[in-house]
C-alpha cells in the first residue's frame, strides 16, 4: 500500500473523509480538519508509520507535501528493508 493510501485510510477511519475525492496537489486545508483534528491526525500518522515527526516540520502546504514529509521521515527514522531481499 502506498503512503497516500495509508493516509487516506486513516482519514476515513478517524474523520469519515472519503479518500476518492482527495487530490494530492490540493492544500491540506481542503481536508476540512480543524487545528485540533490536524494534531490528532499527525499523532495517528506517527503511530501508523512508527515515526516521530519533529514539531518544527509541521509546516507544509499540500497533501503531496504531507506524503513527502512522511516518506522522508520514515526513510530517516524507520527504513524498511527492500522487499526483494530475503533475510536468512
Amino acid at each position, binding site marked *: 500500500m502506498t503512503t497516500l493510501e495509508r493516509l487516506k485510510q486513516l482519514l476515513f477511519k*478517524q*474523520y*469519515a473523509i472519503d479518500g476518492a475525492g482527495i487530490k494530492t496537489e490540493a492544500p491540506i486545508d481542503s481536508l476540512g480538519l480543524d487545528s*485540533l483534528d490536524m*494534531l*490528532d491526525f*499527525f*499523532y495517528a500518522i*506517527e503511530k501508523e508509520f512508527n515515526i*516521530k515527526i519533529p514539531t518544527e516540520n509541521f509546516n507544509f502546504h499540500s497533501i503531496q507535501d504531507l506524503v513527502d514529509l512522511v516518506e522522508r521521515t520514515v526513510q530517516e527514522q524507520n527504513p524498511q528493508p527492500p522487499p526483494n531481499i530475503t533475510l536468512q
Partner: protein
Amino acid sequence: MNRVVISGLGVVSPLGNSSDEFFNNLAAGKSGIGRFPEDFLPRLGIRIAARCAFDALEHFPGTIARKLDRVSQFALVAATQAANDAGLELTEAEKRRSGVYCGTSMGGITTLDLAYFQLLQENASRVSPLGIPMAMNNAAASHISIQFGLKGSCITYSTACSSSAIAIGEAFRLIQQGRAEVMFAGGSEASLAFGVLMGWESLGTLAREASDPAASCKPFSKDRSGFVLGEGAAMVILESRDRALRRGARIHGEVIGYCSTADAGHITKPSEEGLAIAMQTALDDAQISPDRIGYINAHGTATPANDVAETRAIKNVFGEMAYKIPLSSTKSMHGHLLGAAGALEFIATALSVQHQTIPPTINLAVPDPECDLDYVPGQARKVPGLMTAMSNSFAFGGTNAVLVLNRGT
C-alpha cells in the same frame, strides 16, 4: 423570586438508560451491581462495580465518539434525554441566558489513565493531543453547551460526592433569582479506571464482595462494609414555574430548598454536626418545618462512618419525628456514582414523589442499634399523598449539599 421547576429528566445509569427504566428498577428493588468480567484487572482485590450498559456507537458516530471521554458521552446522552423530555426549544436570545452546571468528581480519568499507561508502561514518545481536552473536568459541561448552543453560564463543580447536587442547587439559585432562562444541571462520572479502583480499595471504603455481588452494598445494615463504585450521568432541565406553565411543559417537581455547607472538620470523616447543619439550612431555605418532609433520599454510602453520622444528624434535625420519616439509600442498588450521585439521587427523589412510591434500601438484613430509623428495607413502599422530599449529598472534603423538592403542580 421565581419558583423553580424540573421540566426534563435524563439518566444514564447502572439501572438503565432512561429515567423511566431507572425508576422502575429502583422501585422493583433491582441491583445494578455486578462483577467485572473474569479477566478484568486481576490485581484488584475488589472486582465489583455498578456499570452502565452503554455502547457509545449507539449514540454517536465513531468519528465523534473517539473524541469524547466516556464521562462526556454519558453527560451528552443524559442532557439530550432531558432536553427532549422537556420539549425544549430556545430562541437565540434565550440561549444567551441559558447554561450548564455540571458536577463531576474525576472528569475524564480513564483518558488520563490510558495516557499514563502509554507513557510509563509502553514508553510512548508522544501521547494523544486529544488527551487534555478529553480529560479536563469541564469537558462534559462544555460539550453540552456546544451541542445545545447555550451561551450563558457554563460551570463545572467538583466537590467529590456532592458535585452534582451542588450543580443542581446553584442552577436552582440562578433561575430563582432570574439570572438565567433555562439551566441544564446535573453530573456525570465515568471513573471505573484501574488507578481509581485501586485507590478506593486502598482507602478501605469499598464494600466486600458478597457471594451474590448484588448483595454487597448494605446501607444501614450492621454488616455493611462500604459502597460499590458506579458510573453514569443524570441531568435535569430547570426553568421558572411561570415559563414552564406558559409553554405547557410537564413538571416533574419543584425545587424549594437548597444549601451547601462545609464540615470544616476532617478531609474524609463526615461530621454529624455538619450534616445536621446542612439539612437544617436547606429546610430554612425552603421555609418549611421539618414535619413537611415525607421522604429522605439518604446519602447512605454504607460505610460504617457515614450511616451512623447521617442517622444521628437526621435525629438532631427532626427529633422524635425522625422515626416517622421513611428514608432510603438507593446507592444499595445503583452504586456510588461519586460526582453524578447527587443528581441521580435527586432524580430518584423527584420520581419517588411523582409516583408516590419510595424505593427501598436493599440488603438491609442485620439491624444496627445505631441505625434505628425507618430505612424502607427490602421493598418499595407506596406513600399516597407524598408531597415533599429531601435528598442528601455529603462528600469527602466536607462540602455537603441538601436539596428539597415538592411534587410538581
